[in-house]
């Protein structure tokens, strides 16, 4: 991976959920870093723990069921897990912002969208200025309307007075993005931003994110299950399976030559008209299903579904670690080319 200046460094993060059915280890020993101005994608299917990582960075994991068990998250030189809640609040929304998957439920239905964006602005800039609050309120509203224009909503002065339910899904997502970038964060965490949207609207949202990234120079941590989106938009990729990272590389390198059998399998599953004969009518699959914790399979968690691993003794007993096989490429597999 490009050794640019590193903005966020996650080291050895582990998070678990304590339920009455047992301890669910949602994230186990995850390490990665996001560089300035680049897009880092965390890819994985549902239940692999990627959303938990996002929530852990902002320390939004639901206590007391969920707990960050160990690890460090270093952002601009500070370990986020050691900060006090008050300091954390200054980072949330201000330096690190997040947008969620379901725009409808993430916006408060009883306030207009203009109010919600203005509120974010007011709170984070309160400490910066000493203006009289009324003037600050008017200023915040103007800023909100400007933001709506920046994210591509037509007729923003009128839209700012509308309620979330009056907007379409794509526009709601744009409002969320407006709220997120209102304080010019250094890092934007996008948790499945296009899953709930149509194809065309989703493409437009991703274009918007690209544009904003170019304008503000912010980094994006993109969390998704859609490999194709990752291929188009991300610079660095980490593939997650069952709470661990199994492969991490530069986006181009990964898609040109994936090493881990899971990544290979996922890429084969995608319908691709250019490669296979459409008349053959059979898609490649990965047999079996994602293991639900607890308990995970012993050894490599992917081995029951892996063509090589289901016959290999080492894969069945010993868990492979994420190790560097080439400069900038990390794989957790006993059979990866060293």
């Amino acid at each position, binding site marked *: 991976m490009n050794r640019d200046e590193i903005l966020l460094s996650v080291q050895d993060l582990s998070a678990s959920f304590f339920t009455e059915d047992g301890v669910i280890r949602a994230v186990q020993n995850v390490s990665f870093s996001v560089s300035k101005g680049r897009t880092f994608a965390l890819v994985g299917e*549902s239940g692999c723990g990627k959303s938990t990582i996002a929530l852990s960075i902002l320390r939004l994991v639901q206590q007391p069921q969920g707990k960050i068990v160990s690890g460090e998250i270093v952002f601009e030189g500070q370990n986020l897990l050691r900060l006090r809640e008050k300091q954390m609040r200054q980072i949330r929304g201000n330096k690190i912002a997040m947008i969620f998957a379901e725009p409808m439920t993430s916006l408060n239905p009883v306030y207009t969208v203009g109010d919600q964006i203005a509120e974010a602005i007011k709170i984070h800039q309160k400490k910066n200025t000493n203006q009289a609050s009324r003037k600050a309120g008017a200023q915040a509203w103007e800023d909100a309307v400007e933001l709506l224009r920046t994210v591509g909503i037509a007729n923003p002065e009128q839209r700012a007075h509308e309620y979330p339910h009056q907007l379409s899904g794509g526009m709601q997502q744009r409002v969320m993005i407006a709220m997120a970038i209102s304080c010019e964060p250094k890092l934007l965490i996008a948790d499945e931003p296009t899953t709930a949207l149509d194809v065309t609207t989703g493409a437009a949202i991703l274009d918007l994110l690209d544009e904003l990234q170019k304008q503000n120079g912010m980094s994006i941590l993109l969390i998704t299950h859609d490999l194709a989106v990752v291929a188009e938009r991300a610079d660095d990729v980490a593939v997650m399976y069952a709470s661990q990272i199994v492969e991490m590389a530069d986006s181009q390198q990964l898609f040109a030559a994936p090493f881990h059998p899971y990544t290979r399998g996922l890429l084969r599953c995608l319908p*691709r008209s*250019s490669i296979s004969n459409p008349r053959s009518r059979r898609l490649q699959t990965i*047999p079996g*299903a*994602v293991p639900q914790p607890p308990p995970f399979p012993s050894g490599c968690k992917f081995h029951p579904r892996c063509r090589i691993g289901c016959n290999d003794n080492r894969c069945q007993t010993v868990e492979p670690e994420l190790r560097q096989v080439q400069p900038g490429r990390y794989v957790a597999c006993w059979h990866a080319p060293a």
Partner: protein
Amino acid sequence: MRNEYLLQVDNLKTYFPIKKGLLRRTAGFVRAVDGISFAIRAGQTLGLVGESGCGKTTVARSIIRLVPATAGRVIFDQTDVLSADRAKLRQLRKQISLIFQDISGSLNPRMTVSSIIGEPLKVHKGMTGRQLNERVATLLCEVGLTPDHINRYPHQFSGGQRQRIGIARALALQPKLVIADEPTSAVDVSIQSQILNLLKDLQEKFALTYLFITHDLAVVEFFADYVAVMYMGRIVEQGPAAELYRNPLHPYTRTLLSAIPQVYIDDFRLTIDDCKPVLSEVEGSKIENQKSEIKPAGCTFGPRCPWRQNNCFKQMPQLQQICNHKGHFVACWKY
């Protein structure tokens, strides 16, 4: 003369009234389905593609009368569905079955798998006891589950398994036509391909006919013989699958294809950079977001179309066949 089409839909319209005011007067209509026509031959698959809110689910539900249709005809196996009486409808419902999108909502959480799959068998075929259990076990094996799942409740299964149970239920009465309403939207990628392969195998084994409804153009090409693209309640383009993908004509189809994210450059993207949709007041294609209750004149894609001209706003284009492409219909003034 024997009609070779198993299902024929002729100018189907389903309007939902918008009630406004104190006395709940009908102020206008949401035109969920606005004149849809297509036909499917036995043993084939028609893919109905469109984004959310375009009315494709309403088409499915209108065909089997879960939602009352306002106008049009639906002919299934020489029988008129929309005007059938209760007894005839009951017979028809045995031959057409539906696979739902929402896997957590489509299975009754209070019933075991054996009841979910077995109840239609009990009610319609009168099977009981050992015979019933054997049939349920057979169905479960067909869809890739094991018979010892028979007494479990839906919440104990994963998403992919629940969808398989839904498929087993749809097959219970040995239908001729299966309407699959976005069967793979709610499952992971690796499970999606398993489910699609399963559906394909079942089609070959039981000679089923599918009406496959989805928003994912990438999936449809592998699955369908014939594709129809819907926008705002109307079909804007339809044709054989291979032809449509090789040569998409309608600007909306081209927009959709260009917006699909792809891993490798030559997957779907054609040189269609001229098809970025224009940002407008009406973002998105949801019918519920129509602001006016009056039927807009002209093509419904007009406001977003990058090729729009003056007469696009005056009159609605009809589906017409393009001369040199047999079976390929487009509704656009450009042609």
